[in-house]
């Protein structure tokens, strides 16, 4: 697949602080690339540099094979952006807002009308077209924000944390909409600090922290980077210290801890661990209320790489 975006050695400094530190990556045509990282990791700064809103100290950015500059209007015509903050006019209705922003790209009224109709349907705003933004809930407002950014049918879409502070129903709607956009042929750069979203929709993920790339790959590839391959949790009370010590010696165990109610065990390899543990508990007549196994998450990967949680 052809690379639609090529970022090479991008560096951005605010006074003495490096907000982006030698960042390089590509975005292939038709993929959804996730930029995952906690708040302040440099995701939005990267997007703003890529859109030529921010000056950067070093590096280069190419889109559609051309250098991205503030006056690269032909490139801009192919781009749609949904910023983290809702950017709509309070004085205009839902329909007027979409029409205004779409009108910056599409001159023909008839074509625009059709595009708006499709954007409204994608965002699920059919019933709210005559509403003013202040009459909308947070989730609907986010959907309007997205509709304003994608109504002109861009080939490349930047979505900067589009689901921040929205209800689960709207979040699902937004994620379904993003999948639909990709299905329609759009390439998407998606920033978030919600690992679940990344796992749900992204083909490839870049994990960022302090402006640096920590890891790149598909979700499965990234999970391979986690120290633990399986996590087993046992809800049990009154576990004696001697049993805990014996459990730690069962094999393949990287780490085992007990807080009085839950026994959490991290395994290096994720095969047949649960069966062995259950047999041990049965032998020792240790009674538990619940036992379950989990594969490592991207949060675990981030934790292993940085020593902190994604939401820290």
């Amino acid at each position: 697949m052809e690379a639609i975006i090529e970022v090479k050695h991008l560096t951005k400094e605010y006074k003495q602080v490096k907000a982006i530190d030698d960042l390089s990556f590509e975005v292939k045509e038709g993929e959804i690339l996730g930029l995952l990282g906690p708040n302040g990791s440099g995701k939005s700064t990267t997007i703003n540099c890529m859109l030529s809103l921010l000056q950067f100290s070093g590096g280069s950015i190419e889109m559609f094979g051309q250098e991205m500059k503030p006056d690269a209007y032909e490139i801009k015509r192919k781009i749609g952006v949904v910023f983290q903050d809702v950017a709509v006019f309070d004085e205009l209705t839902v329909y007027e807002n979409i029409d205004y922003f779409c009108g910056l790209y599409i001159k023909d009224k008839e074509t625009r009308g059709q595009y708006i109709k499709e954007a409204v349907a994608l965002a699920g705003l059919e019933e709210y077209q005559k509403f003013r933004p202040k009459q909308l809930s947070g989730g609907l407002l986010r959907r309007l924000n997205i509709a304003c950014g994608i109504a002109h049918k861009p080939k490349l879409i930047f979505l900067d944390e589009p689901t921040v502070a929205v209800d689960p129903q709207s979040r699902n709607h937004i994620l379904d909409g993003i999948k639909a956009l990709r299905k329609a042929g759009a390439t998407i750069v998606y920033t978030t600090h919600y690992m679940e979203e990344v796992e749900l929709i992204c083909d490839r993920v870049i994990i960022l922290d302090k402006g640096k790339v920590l890891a790149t790959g598909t979700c499965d590839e990234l999970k391979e980077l986690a120290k633990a391959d399986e996590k087993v949790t046992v809800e049990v009370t009154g576990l004696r210290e001697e049993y805990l010590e014996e459990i730690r010696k069962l094999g393949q165990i990287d780490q085992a801890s007990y807080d009085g109610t839950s026994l959490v065990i991290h395994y290096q390899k994720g095969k047949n661990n649960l069966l062995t543990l259950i047999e041990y508990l049965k032998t020792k007549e240790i009674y538990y209320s619940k036992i379950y196994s989990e594969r490592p998450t991207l949060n675990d990967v981030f934790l292993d790489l940085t020593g902190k949680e994604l939401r820290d």
Partner: protein
Amino acid sequence: MLLHNFCYALRVLFRDRMLIFWTYAFPIILGTFFSLAFSNIENSERLAVIDIAVVENEEFTASTLWKEAMAGLSKEDTEEQLFSTRYTTEGEAKELLAAKEITGYFKLSDGEAQVVVASSGMEETVLQYAVTEIAQTEKMIGQVAEYQISQGVMPTEESLKKLSEEVLGQVQQEEGIRDASNGRLSYTMVEFYTLIAMTCLYGGMLGMTVVNQNLANMSHKGKRVVVGPTKKRLVILGSTLAGYVAQLLGIALLFAYTVFVLQVDYGNRLPLIVLITLVGCLAGLAMGIAAAVLIKASENTKIGVMLSVTMLGCFLSGMMGITMKYIIDKHLPLVNRLNPANMITDGLYALYYYDTLERYWFDVISLLVFAGLLLAAAMFGLRRQKYDSI
């Protein structure tokens, strides 16, 4: 694209309640207060025709100039009437003065013009002023006659009469007397002129609002506009045109309200009044655009700066009292030369009070230069394409 932006910017402005209030309602409310407050003050302070006496002695009877001058200033039921004059003996004049039936009396004695008053005040000052002016005129005529004789030309009675009429006309046109005596003229007008100036300059708020909506460092909407494929200047042009139209509507509403409801008489030079108002609105808009582009601060700070500059400008140009305008004109003329509120106020003032248009055109051109410089600076600032931070 220009039309698309223009239409939507206009729609946004007309639906912004705060802007509607400051642009349309506030000047009308202020105008109503001016009308209520100043009309009473003006009525009470307007100078009535002054009762005086003239000692009709031989010297006075023999002086054509003095006779005609006093008769001219005492002509009843005319706009020029300054005095209600009784021709008496000196004794009668003294009695009338003692009975406070007259403000003062005037007599010619040994070629000297004398004014006798019982106290000091505005009316006494006006009497003294008029007599001094006529006396100077008499002296000037004497000098002209002497000069003509020395050149071998005998002055005719007709030529001397013409000269005296010209000088007498100047006495009646003197601002100090005319302002106080002519019922049609009023210093309240200056308050309304500054109100118009303020409304023009309030357009700066509109200019600032529409420009901020298109700047990536000032609003999220601006970021969305800037990442689009439309040139920033084109988007801003459409928006500022909408701001200008909205502002002109505000001025039109103010004029309509003050003329038809408050019965303010702006004189009979409507096209010129409209012209300076259009230019004044442009200056206001330019101020707002320049503030939006050039001041590196939050939107609230910019609004604060705009409001402060506008109100200070209006204050210095006489909104809270005409005296301030005269003080600044006299002691700090450069301040008012650079003050857009004063340029508008002064232009309207010049249209109303003077027959010639030199001062008016000077103000119009000053406003155009002011607006042009600010717009040029703003355009220069807009060349900036990327930001250090947003």
